[in-house]
Structure formats: structure tokens, C-alpha cells
């Protein structure tokens, strides 16, 4: 029999419905896996007591016959989601010991649908990072190793704890958040699937804010169908988020067909970078061939402003972050540091100096600079104009195609310390940032392995609100790729 922790969410649902195992047994198997894999440092807080109580409630609901869609499914929750009564830090020292008095809308919806919370997942501090090296609670380690090498690899970021826990079979699925690629890039690095829905699909209420015009929650899981199951529960209008979209949420899992016949797949020529890794190009070409085999029509398209997406992002995201993170002042919650004899202003600067890590400080300072008097128009306004042009590029592409197919990241997972230069780290998000700036749904699906056996992902980008189309293309790639590789630990 397959180990309980190896099952997909769909498989767990079937086994629970057939009474092959109980929700408590399923949760206990995952709690044991969590304990055994503590070396990965995927969790900041483990919540075994909450998990067992929720599993028992799921068993009772299953026995009564009124189980909700995710009853008994053990999930990890990224530490960016406020969880009532359970410490939420966003990976930052400045929020150490912060106990939310309320539940975020998205985590609350998953729990209301019967999910079991295993714990809070480690992440880059305030979701700023692509490698999980910026967490104040220690780096998350990927369960994968390259070839015969024993070097520890990054799980990607910022949802690195989510990626590592799902790939290592500690959690069946996990919540992630994506501002410039923080669901898709880690999913690609550890060989799992993850989708960032259209901006506004998932409520941001109770999600610690990084860059509000970009932040979106989404699921990460070991199959496209599992992502669809979780996404249906996570989406929905919320009056408490003024950017929440009041549109119907389809049953994404029920509608999943993987049928590509008659779909036009755009291949953006600007994503073919100079000096790009030939393995990534080969994988992309393989993906194009799979799409053709599945009945899709391939169209070359142009997104002319692609190269300006990253610099625009590194103005807009830090600008919003500098404003959002102004709230951490040592007064209402979180860390407070008061120098001896210091006044209120001294307290603010000492608290923020001690509470924020290097990358967060760097981004707050960039944001402060680009918004400061005399520079606002040259930087911030220009970046928002370029953002309009980037969104317009996509709108024009949709006249020629229904979906876009690209690589998720320019490389496989790298080792800790390999990208010490912040700029080099930023460039890792080159393929994920443009669709974030345009608010579009996009997902990564594992599609192959690098020369030394590390997972590589392909990205599908869709029109606004066409998560169903993105998931269908994801399923087509999943079927064609037959990705069965799994990490060694």
C-alpha cells in the first residue's frame, strides 16, 4: 500500500470517503513525517494539537456524512497568513511572538472546508527573497540534492517552507503567496505545482502585506488537480478586501479536462534570453511539442516590454513595501527596542534597526528613496507607466492566443550563498514578474529534470480570470511529462 503521505489530495479524499483510513491516521502520518524532517526547517511553528483536533472533527463529519470538500486534508500554512491564536511572524524578527486575534480570510476558508493545519511554514522575511535565505528563523533546505553532490540547495522563495514541506511529503498541500513569483519559482525548484490566481481572486485580508497591488495567495501541491481543489476553497469575494473581485468561483477541479484541442498557445519571443541555459530551452521546446501533441495550435507572440518588467517591479514592490512596513514601529505589536533614555523617535529607529533583516531594510530604503520628493515622478510614476505598457503587451497577445507557455525560472535550484549579489538574485524572477505586474493567473508545473537531476518547471500564463484554462494546460503538461521524480530526503 502507498504510504499515506505519498497520496495526492484527490487520493486522500477517495481513501477517507472509502474509510480506508481515518483523518486522524492521515494527520498522524503527516505529523510523524514533520517530526522526521525537522532538519529541513520548513516550519516555524508546528501545531500538532490543533491538527489532531481538526482531524477528529473531520472524522466526525465524515461519519455523519456532512464532510466539507477538504475534510481531513493536512495542509501547511505559510507564515504570512494570520492564524488566530497561532504565532504569525512573516519570517521576521519584528513579529516574533505576534499572536493574531483573527484568522485570515484564505486560511479561514480552507479550515471551514475541513482542512487540517499542520503548522506555520517558514518563508523569506516579509516574502522578500527567492531562496529562503532571508528568514529570521533560519533558512529552509530543499529535500533535493544535485547529482552526487551533498551540497544543500535552496527551495526557492519566498514560499520556500511551503515548497519544501509539500515536496518532502510532510504536507499534502500548502498555501503560498506570490508577489513576483513566490509561488511559481519555489514550486519549480522542488518539482511540485503551484498557481497564482488573478489578482483579486483570493482575499488579501489577514495576509501580512508586502506589495499590496501585487500580492496574491495561491495553492501549492503535488498535482494540478490538487491545486484546483485547494484553489476553489481559497478564492471568493471578501468585503474586507477592497480589491477582492466579486465574481463567481467555478469548481476548478470538476471543470478540469486537460483538453488542449482548439487552444492557441503563445510563445513569447522575448523570453528567449541571451545566454540562456540550453537545458531550459530544450525543456521549453519539449513543452511546445507536448502542447502540439495535445491538439493546441502554437503561435509566436511578442511582449516587447518584457525586459523592463524587473526594473519596474523593483521600484513598485519596494515603494509599496516601504509604505506597508511603516506600521512596524514598536507601538502596537511586535518587537520594541528602546535605547536607554531614548525618546519615541529613537525607539522607532532602534526597533526597526533590530527587527528587520538586511534585505527588508534594503528594500524599504529603495522604496523610501523612489517615493521621496524630487524622485517620485522619475522613478515611481515612470514605473507605473511602464507597468501599463507591460499589461498592454499581454492584452495584445491575447488577440492572437489563449494562453502563454514559458519556462518558470532561468535555472534549476542553486546552493546557499550562490547568489550573494542582490541584483543577481532579483534576476531569478525574470519570467514570473511580468505576469505579476499584469495581475494575470499563472502556474508552474514540473516538466523535467536538469542534467544533474533537479526539477525544472514550465509556466502557463492566462487571461484575467481564466484560471480554468491555465489549470487545463497545466494538466496537459503534467500528463505529457509524467513527472515522477521525487527528492531523496
Amino acid at each position: 500500500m502507498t504510504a499515506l503521505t505519498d497520496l495526492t489530495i484527490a487520493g486522500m479524499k477517495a481513501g477517507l470517503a472509502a474509510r480506508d483510513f481515518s483523518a486522524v491516521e492521515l494527520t498522524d502520518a503527516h505529523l510523524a513525517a514533520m517530526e522526521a524532517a525537522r532538519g529541513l526547517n520548513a516550519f516555524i511553528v508546528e501545531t500538532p494539537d490543533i491538527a489532531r483536533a481538526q482531524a477528529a472533527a473531520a472524522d466526525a463529519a465524515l461519519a455523519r456524512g456532512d464532510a466539507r470538500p477538504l475534510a481531513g486534508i493536512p495542509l501547511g500554512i505559510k507564515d504570512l497568513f494570520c492564524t488566530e491564536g497561532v504565532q504569525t511572524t512573516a519570517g521576521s524578527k519584528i513579529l516574533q511572538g505576534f499572536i493574531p486575534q483573527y484568522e485570515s480570510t484564505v486560511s479561514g476558508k480552507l479550515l471551514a472546508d475541513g482542512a487540517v493545519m499542520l503548522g506555520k511554514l517558514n518563508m523569506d522575511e516579509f516574502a522578500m527573497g527567492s531562496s529562503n535565505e532571508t528568514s529570521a528563523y533560519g533558512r529552509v533546505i530543499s529535500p533535493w540534492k544535485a547529482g552526487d553532490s551533498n551540497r544543500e540547495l535552496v527551495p526557492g522563495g519566498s514560499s520556500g517552507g511551503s515548497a519544501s514541506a509539500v515536496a518532502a511529503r510532510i504536507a499534502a498541500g500548502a498555501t503560498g503567496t506570490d508577489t513576483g513569483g513566490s509561488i511559481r519559482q519555489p514550486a519549480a525548484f522542488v518539482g511540485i505545482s503551484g498557481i497564482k490566481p488573478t489578482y483579486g481572486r483570493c482575499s488579501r485580508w489577514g495576509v501580512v502585506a508586502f506589495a499590496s497591488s501585487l500580492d496574491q495567495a495561491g495553492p501549492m501541491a503535488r498535482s494540478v488537480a490538487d491545486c484546483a481543489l485547494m484553489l476553489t476553497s481559497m478564492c471568493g469575494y471578501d468585503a474586507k478586501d477592497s480589491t477582492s473581485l466579486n465574481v463567481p468561483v467555478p469548481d476548478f477541479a470538476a471543470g478540469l479536462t486537460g483538453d488542449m484541442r482548439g487552444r492557441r498557445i503563445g510563445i513569447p519571443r522575448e523570453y528567449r534570453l541571451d545566454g540562456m541555459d540550453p537545458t531550459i530551452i530544450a525543456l521549453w521546446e519539449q513543452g511546445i511539442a507536448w502542447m502540439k501533441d495535445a491538439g493546441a495550435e502554437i503561435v509566436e507572440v511578442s511582449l516587447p516590454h518584457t525586459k523592463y518588467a524587473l526594473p519596474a517591479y523593483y521600484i513598485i514592490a519596494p515603494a509599496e513595501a516601504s509604505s506597508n512596513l511603516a506600521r512596524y514601529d514598536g507601538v502596537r505589536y511586535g518587537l520594541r527596542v528602546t535605547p536607554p533614555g531614548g525618546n519615541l523617535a529613537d525607539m522607532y529607529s532602534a526597533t526597526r534597526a533590530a527587527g528587520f533583516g538586511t534585505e527588508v531594510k534594503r528594500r524599504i530604503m529603495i522604496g523610501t528613496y523612489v517615493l521621496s520628493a524630487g524622485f517620485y515622478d522619475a522613478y515611481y510614476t515612470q514605473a507605473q507607466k511602464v507597468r501599463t505598457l507591460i499589461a498592454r503587451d499581454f492584452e495584445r497577445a491575447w488577440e492572437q492566443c489563449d494562453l502563454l507557455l514559458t519556462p518558470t525560472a532561468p535555472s534549476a535550484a542553486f546552493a546557499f550563498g550562490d547568489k550573494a549579489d542582490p541584483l543577481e538574485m532579483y534576476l531569478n524572477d525574470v519570467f514570473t514578474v511580468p505576469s505579476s505586474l499584469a495581475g494575470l493567473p499563472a502556474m508552474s508545473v514540473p516538466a523535467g529534470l536538469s542534467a544533474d537531476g533537479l526539477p525544472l518547471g514550465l509556466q502557463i500564463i492566462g487571461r484575467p480570470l481564466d484560471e480554468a484554462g491555465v489549470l487545463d494546460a497545466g494538466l496537459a503538461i503534467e500528463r505529457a511529462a509524467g513527472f515522477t521524480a521525487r527528492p531523496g530526503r
Partner: protein
Amino acid sequence: MSVDEPTVRKIARLARIGIADDDVAPLAGELSAILGWIEQLGEVDTAGVAPMTAVIPNHLAWRVDQVTDGDVQAKVLANAPDATSGFFAVPKVIE
């Protein structure tokens, strides 16, 4: 754009982040490198282009003008580093 040390100190003060003297020069270098890279945006012709305000067209929802929340003083203060007599307490502001 090269960011000099006085500018670094000014930004840090605006951001209310204390920085050690030893960190000023390295920060000036890092910020200059990042801002120098960002400056390529200047070459994009944006004449007549409106800055983006909403990434997905949406409108702000109306609601009835009534109190929907409140009477949760204990919850509001639950995470305060220093709460006194039902208030947030801070170091002395007036000399």
C-alpha cells in the same frame, strides 16, 4: 544615479531605520548598483501613457454606513509591547 553617504543617512532617517556608521558606505554602494540598474526604465517612451492605478478593473464596493466591528479593546492591546490602563504606552514624547 549614484547614492552618496549623506543621501543614505537621509533615506534611513525618512524610513526610521537606525544604521551603524560602518554600514553607510556599503549601503551606498548597494543602493547605487540597484538604482543604476533600475534607471534603464528611463529609456522607455511613456509619452501619453497613463500610470497604472488598478491592475484588474474593479470598482470600490459601497456598503451601508454602519459600525461593523469594535468593543475589542483587549484584542487590540493583546500584542502590545507595553499597554497601560487600556492604552498603548510609548516613551515620553514631550520634553
